[in-house]
């Protein structure tokens, strides 16, 4: 059940350059069904910024009624979020969308988790869930550079974690696909979230993989009503077939949607 809730900010920390982790408390965490779901955040109680901002739930702790979001403060809305302080009450709509279905891998099998930039956060919840189910988790994280990198330790605690940066300032130089190929990583399923070029590279390099990927698209309502966030499906006989990223996704089976 989707709800709109005034949640309270428990803590907010800058965990990397312009990357903030905020912990929120309220009823919503109890309703979260899967890692990869997101919330739609009104970043200010005033009219502007008018649109909500979609942000993935990175982790949640239903017993404590808490959940975490990790976001990059960049534009108008995320800058407002970065100015939130512990104790603030903030307007959050969620949980939204369909998260990662992990039925592709069984206990003892290997999952390859690939994240780029602010695509990394929802994968932490996923990795924890997979590890909890006894799946062997390997992670490849791509960042622009060292200052913007985060969560390496948290992923390392769950399995092998490789980092790549474009400038080579930490980890291996290059893209995530370079790391996967160079190391010859094997897997039973891939789970990916990150910028479109990364998803496209994964999709074309490992076209026959099993797994899921999480998409980003500009959103209006976040609940499936406004048709802002549609994408084409790979199988589209008459050109009118589509998926809504907000309500059908943001997580889709590998190969289901066109990454355009």
């Amino acid at each position, binding site marked *: 059940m989707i709800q709109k809730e005034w949640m309270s900010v428990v803590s907010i920390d800058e965990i990397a350059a312009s990357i903030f982790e905020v912990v929120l408390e309220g009823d919503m965490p109890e309703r979260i069904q899967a890692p990869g779901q997101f919330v739609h955040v009104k970043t200010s109680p005033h009219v502007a910024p008018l649109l909500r901002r979609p942000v993935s739930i990175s982790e949640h702790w239903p017993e404590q009624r808490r959940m975490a979001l990790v976001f990059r403060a960049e534009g108008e809305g995320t800058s407002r979020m970065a100015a939130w302080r512990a104790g603030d009450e903030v307007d959050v709509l969620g949980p939204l969308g369909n998260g990662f279905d992990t039925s592709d891998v069984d206990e003892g099998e290997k999952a390859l988790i690939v994240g780029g930039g602010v695509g990394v956060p929802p994968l932490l919840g996923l990795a924890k869930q997979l590890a909890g189910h006894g799946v062997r988790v390997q992670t490849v994280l791509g960042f622009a550079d060292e200052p913007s990198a985060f969560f390496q330790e948290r992923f390392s605690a769950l399995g092998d974690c490789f980092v790549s940066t474009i400038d080579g300032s930490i980890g291996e130089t290059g893209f995530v696909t370079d790391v996967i190929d160079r190391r010859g990583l094997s897997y039973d399923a891939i789970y990916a979230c990150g910028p479109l070029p990364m998803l496209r590279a994964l999709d074309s390099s490992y076209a026959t993989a099993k797994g899921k990927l999480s998409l980003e698209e*500009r959103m209006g*309502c976040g609940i*499936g009503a406004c048709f802002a966030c549609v994408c084409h499906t790979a199988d589209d006989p008459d050109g009118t077939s589509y998926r809504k990223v907000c309500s059908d996704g943001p997580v889709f089976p590998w190969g289901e949607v066109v990454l355009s």
Partner: protein
Amino acid sequence: MKLHVSLPGLEMKNPVMPASGCFGFGKEFAQLYDLNDLGAIAIKATTEEARFGNETPRVAETEAGMLNAIGLQNPGLKGVTEQELPWLQQLDTPILANVAGTKMEDYEAVAAGLSESGMVAALELNISCPNVKEGGITFGTDPKLAAELTKRVKHVSDVPVYVKLSPNVTDITEIAKAVEHAGADGLSLINTLSGMKIDPATRKPLLANEIGGLSGPAIKPVAIRMIYQVRQVTELPIIGMGGIMGMEDVLEFMIAGADAVAVGTANISNPFACPEIIQELTDWAGTEPAADWAGWKQGGVKA
């Protein structure tokens, strides 16, 4: 005071309906609240054939507003009558079906099909969508075409026909008068203002379609002015819209000359906007001595 409003085809418990295109066909919102609380529901535009619409990005944020270029994505007349309308029948809320097309024949076919379905209370002729390359908007900017289209659609419809006017015109009263003479049962205004946003970082338009429709609080002063002007040239019922976010905005529209209102963009930034506004209105009505809207409006701006 009684909030009830009675318009051709639309017996509304209160004057608030979601605006077309901002509410889909209602199902998503039905998970959030009881749609019977609404005065009416304007559903998403129906075209004759199914449409995918424009490429993404389809929305962009502007100061106190948003641009959209959805491009009339919808499952087509058949899809709407078979998959969407039957579900809405369980509601005790009148459905205003938005009709779009590129040729007069399209509009006629959709209007006839929806009217015959027996599942809609009235039609809203969208002659004002700025987001499709051909047609649509021209009907809304040329009084002769607008009148002819109205006449033809009236001819094939058994339910009342509202004509939804475009604000992208020199003189909105001319179009209003033209469609009134052609037999429109009511007017709805305003649709979105044609607008554009360019990202200085990429030096490209933010919308894939480049140009889109501007909606939200930013455009409210234009909407109020147009309703005020149109109110002075016609007795037709007016469904007013453009930037309504709260109860005070509803009152402003009613004073300007609207008989009912539609809430568009507000649903997008707050999916509970309609029931919240209706609750506010209900509380306000409890303290308002006038018997009904007609009585209350006598205290306002004279048309």
